[in-house]
């Protein structure tokens, strides 16, 4: 037990020692021209998050795009389809390509979702929720251990939105907390996903936050969605709502994070229109307590 506790403490310290990247943007091709041509001192972003799947089997144009982005920005690979929660295990071909891409980029960390995206040869097409059970935790930890055996860079895990609650013997907060401790990973806390789930499933986002291991929060996501049939949809199509900003302030008041990413996937505006949101996030980050090494 002493050895395990020491190992966990070492990892928390190494998470705290990750570089401070600042405020960034989920890269989409629509932003390419502005981001690549604008003088860096005028850029509203400090780093970019790239979607892994866009570069696993790249066309020459995508390969060239990746190179140009790497020359200008620190890139954080963000995976969608590793399917860490698949009970049938990981796709070895996908994992091999992913490991090669991450080795090429050599980022300070990379991220994936707490979900499954395929089963029985069926590609679900999006992030599907897991039940909050010990069995799901066992599957996740087994798959994450396999990934860590191939990829040296730290993996951080993202909470997803779920339309369908599969239940389980654990609360959502307890499930996330135990996963992070057992898998020894950092957390990519998606504030909009947290807000969306709280609203759609009737709980208080701040109460769930209290259950999470704060020292493991490495990065934040934020975005805005829309309502459909009384449910909030995490569409990444709107500016973030005020509730998400309040959650961001609550997190940043308590713990420094290493990076904050604005996501936009639909109704993508010019980069200049995103500046106010990026600037507001930057101001909140500056009010955060200084990063410290945790033991």
């Amino acid at each position, binding site marked *: 037990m002493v050895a395990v506790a020491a190992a966990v403490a070492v990892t928390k310290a190494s998470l705290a020692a990750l570089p401070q990247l600042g405020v960034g943007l989920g890269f989409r091709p629509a932003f390419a021209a502005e981001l690549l041509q604008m003088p860096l001192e005028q850029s509203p972003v400090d780093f970019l998050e790239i979607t892994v799947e866009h570069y696993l089997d790249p066309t020459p144009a995508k390969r060239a795009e990746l190179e140009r982005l790497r020359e200008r920005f620190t890139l954080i690979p963000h995976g969608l389809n590793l399917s860490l929660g698949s009970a049938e295990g990981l796709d070895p071909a996908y994992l091999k390509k992913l490991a090669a891409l991450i080795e090429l980029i050599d980022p300070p960390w990379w991220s994936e979702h707490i979900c499954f995206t*395929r089963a029985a*040869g069926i590609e679900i097409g999006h992030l*599907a929720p897991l039940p909050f059970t010990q069995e799901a935790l066992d599957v996740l930890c087994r798959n994450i251990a396999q990934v860590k055996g191939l990829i040296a860079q730290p993996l951080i895990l993202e909470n997803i939105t779920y339309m369908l609650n599969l239940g389980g013997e654990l609360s959502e907060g307890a499930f996330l907390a135990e996963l992070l401790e057992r898998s020894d990973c950092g957390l990519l806390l998606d504030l909009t996903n947290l807000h969306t789930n709280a609203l759609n499933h009737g709980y208080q986002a701040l109460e769930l936050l209290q259950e999470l291991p704060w020292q493991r929060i490495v990065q934040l996501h934020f975005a805005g969605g829309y309502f459909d049939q009384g449910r909030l949809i995490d569409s990444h199509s709107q500016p973030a709502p005020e509730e998400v900003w309040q959650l961001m302030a609550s997190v940043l008041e308590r713990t420094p994070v290493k990076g904050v990413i604005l996501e936009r996937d639909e109704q993508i505006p010019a980069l200049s229109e995103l500046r106010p949101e990026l600037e507001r996030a930057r101001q909140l980050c500056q009010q955060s307590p200084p990063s410290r090494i945790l033991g």
Partner: protein
Amino acid sequence: MALLELQQVLARLYTDAALLEGFLAEPQASCERLQVSEPVRNQLLVLSASELRFFADSLRQKRYLMVCKLLPRSKALLAEAFKAEFMSYAQAPLPQGSKKHQLDAVAFANYLLASLKSSEDSWLRDQLLFEKICLQTQLQERGCFCQIFRHAIWANSSKPLTSLGFWLRLPGWAGWWHLRLPLPGS
């Protein structure tokens, strides 16, 4: 073991609209037909029907939005009919792999092309063929495509203009070589 079986059943329910409707209408009978074990049956029977349907619908909607981005000209031309046709087509499973959405769009273009009558919709046919070939050149690192178009497809105009489009990429080439050639009579 229960999670493995649960995920296998859920993946089918999420992506097969007819199976989902059957399950929602007769959950017990559907579990028997699917030969679901008792622990998994107990998990399935307490799921919210509205949440299950909403999630499955959201998956089809997400797939649709991706195809809209990949076939923008055809979508503009078909307008509302594009979505209706897609929802009918989307009974077919989503292709696998990192280029699944491009493959999905190519398969949907083929689905639409198969429904066109030869003497009509020649402008839509041109648009579908053009967008399909453009997607295929993103999917393949080698190959050859040759297509006759009846309209000024390169200018995105329905004005009659017969031309030949030719795309070629041989092994070792960095990109596609492309030729457009007006044909006599245009």
